[in-house]
């Protein structure tokens, strides 16, 4: 069946040298070809099937954990670059959802690019407190209070009572508030003010929302508009790219948000009508090069132009310049310089494991072993030396849902940021999992999930019986080893695939209520490699690299 194409003859190619494989939308692939001088007239598009076996074998390692939006290859299937485009600013753990795809590119030594809104406007239901702003009768006070509410850590009522009663006074008072506010809160406020009000720094940030647009009554609902600034999880994503890029270029690019489109599209700029390239009109595509302001002033070019410079270099086989990407992780440009301290907290007593909430902790393996033993885990964890530090990524789940997204990406993020030193990030060392620290995926299954969620033993057994029908193993650990020695990574269901690959230990803790627990504990790929139960020559490990 012929591929659909909107490309005009002047841009498409009858003798292509490159293929743009797409799983997102055809429009994205054609946008890429149109604006890349290295692809224009030299490339065609092909849709990646939903099933990985429809993808040429040479490309499967790039999609072994998850399928990227776009992959550019030469006509003879040599991967050139892997690309993700997302216009929704992720929040919380979702910020890391796509990172397993970039991990695969890094392992394969293939450059990757991520076009995303690093900061954006959001619309959501207003809180009761925010909605009360609409009830203030005095219009002057309502406007002032709404303006104050658009800043972090400002108490509008308190300022109003001090006689600060208009926006000008509010702005001039922000920097003089240092002595009246505790240090951490001031830093948060000052940070916001410098970025989104003054906006005179090296990096162009999106402007603050006017107070009068902060809360609106929409029918029976109250809706608030606000800036979603990058937080801890986004700082991890941008740091991930910075670390990996020391070996293989993996670059984020900031998708621009404009105030004019605050309500229409949450600020995200699109190509609506493109007079020069009408085939790109009305396809919800990112803007073309040169259409949005310069974000990183030292580079002097807009992000889309820089994105295509990376694409062109990769396609031409040239060395990819840094393109100012270090700006994303420069202290105080997007994040306070000490944000890494918020990535994880240390556990100093094994009992803390049992009461800790979702999130990231780290501890000596000795404490982990004590905690798991207390829960009744009988798995032999002796290959984790007592003083080996392990990072625990704990999630809580109360419903019967698959634990694939966003956790596969979260684990790929932690593999790079928490478990390895810079020298361990080369493609060959990534795959060997010879890490400085360990990684534990710990799922606490509560309520309905405690009874019905199949993570981890039931799902592993289902995979084992499906993929090795003649298999006789009853022990889950042996089932996993057999799978690693028999099948490719992409054959294993996504709900456990990345978890098995990145985690030294996988834990499913079922909370049956009344302090009654049962626990399933499984050694993952890094532990099994360390104890020589599996090797890098096994089919699953081989399937991860080109």
């Amino acid at each position, binding site marked *: 069946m012929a591929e659909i194409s909107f490309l005009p003859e002047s841009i498409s190619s009858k003798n292509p040298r490159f293929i743009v494989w797409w799983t997102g939308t055809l*429009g994205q692939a054609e946008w890429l070809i149109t604006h890349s001088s290295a692809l224009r007239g030299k490339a065609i598009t092909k849709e990646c099937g939903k099933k990985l076996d429809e993808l040429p074998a040479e490309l499967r390692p790039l999609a072994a954990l998850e399928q990227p939006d776009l992959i550019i290859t030469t006509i003879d299937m040599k991967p050139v670059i892997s690309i993700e485009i997302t*216009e929704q600013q992720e929040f919380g753990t979702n910020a890391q959802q796509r990172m397993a795809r970039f991990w695969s590119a890094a392992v394969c030594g293939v450059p990757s690019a991520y076009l995303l809104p690093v900061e954006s406007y959001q619309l959501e239901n207003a809180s009761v407190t925010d909605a009360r702003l609409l009830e203030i009768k005095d219009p002057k006070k309502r406007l002032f209070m709404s303006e104050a509410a658009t800043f972090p850590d400002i108490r509008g009522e308190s300022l109003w009572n001090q006689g600060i009663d208009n926006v000008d006074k509010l702005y001039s008072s922000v920097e003089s508030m240092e002595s009246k506010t505790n240090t951490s809160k001031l830093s948060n406020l000052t940070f916001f003010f410098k970025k989104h009000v003054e906006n005179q720094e090296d990096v162009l940030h999106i402007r603050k929302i006017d107070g*009068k647009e902060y809360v609106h009554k929409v*029918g029976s609902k109250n809706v608030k508009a606000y800036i979603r600034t990058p937080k801890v999880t986004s700082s991890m994503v941008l740091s991930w790219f910075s670390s990996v890029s020391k070996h293989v270029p993996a670059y984020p690019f900031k998708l621009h948000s404009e105030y*004019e489109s605050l309500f229409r599209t949450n600020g995200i700029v699109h190509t609506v*009508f493109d007079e020069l390239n009408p085939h790109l009109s*009305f*396809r919800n595509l990112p803007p073309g090069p040169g259409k949005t302001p310069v974000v990183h002033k030292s580079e002097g070019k807009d992000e889309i132009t820089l994105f295509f410079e990376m694409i062109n270099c990769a396609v031409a086989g040239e060395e990819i310049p840094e393109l100012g990407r270090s700006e994303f992780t420069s202290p105080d440009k997007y994040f306070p310089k000490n944000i890494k301290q918020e990535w994880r907290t240390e556990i100093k007593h094994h009992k803390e494991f049992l009461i800790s909430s979702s999130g990231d902790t780290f501890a000596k393996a000795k404490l982990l072993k004590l905690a798991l033993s207390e829960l009744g885990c009988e798995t032999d964890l002796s290959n984790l030396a007592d003083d080996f530090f392990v990072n625990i990524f704990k999630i809580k789940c109360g419903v019967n849902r698959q634990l694939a997204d966003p956790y596969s990406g979260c684990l790929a993020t932690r593999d790079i940021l928490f478990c390895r030193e810079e020298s361990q990030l080369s493609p060959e060392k990534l795959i060997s999992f010879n890490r400085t620290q360990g990684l534990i995926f710990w799922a606490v299954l509560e309520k309905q999930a405690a009874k019905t969620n199949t993570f981890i033993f039931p799902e592993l057994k289902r995979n084992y019986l499906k993929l090795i029908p003649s298999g006789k193993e009853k022990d889950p650990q042996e089932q996993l080893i057999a799978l690693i020695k028999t099948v490719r990574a992409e054959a294993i269901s996504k709900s456990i695939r990345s978890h098995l690959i990145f985690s030294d230990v996988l834990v499913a803790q079922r909370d049956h209520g009344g302090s009654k627990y049962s626990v399933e504990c499984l050694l993952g790929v890094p532990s099994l490699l360390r104890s020589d139960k599996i090797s890098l020559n096994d089919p699953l490990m081989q399937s991860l690299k080109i």
Partner: protein
Amino acid sequence: MKFSEEHVTRKLAITLQNAGYEIIAVHPPDGQGPFVIPKPPQLRDIERSSYHPDLVGIRRKNDGSLVLVIAECKLDENDLNDDYAKLKTLSESRDSLLFAFFRCQLFEGGPERGFDFEEISKLETSELPLEFYLASQGKSTLQTALKSLNGFPCYKYTWTLPDLIAL
């Protein structure tokens, strides 16, 4: 050549733009939609909690007033029944409709064309300046009026294959 729903959506967008409409958002098949309208709470929580119309635009009437246009597209005309039902459900939710107008409002620093949302909010649901469009490939190139949706005009655009190709 193979055709897709995207041919229809783009054909409708071009047709409307040529007729003076402002196209605000287009949602390609399988893509992310920038123009999201929350649905009322669902009885079955597996249903999508928001509408992602294939196309949203604004039409200026002869008297200068504006009409919001929400459209759904399918490649096959027979598949439009589901979209008609989807739009009917949308037309019955005042909150969802108001949210669509809210997105298209005028505000300081905002777009040149848009609705005075405060005034729109005062209108009865049936008075909202709103039209629904359905579009597909068809046996003939036509614009026909369908039965109104909760009192809102609803039109169907179809194009023959040759006309559809002529984007």
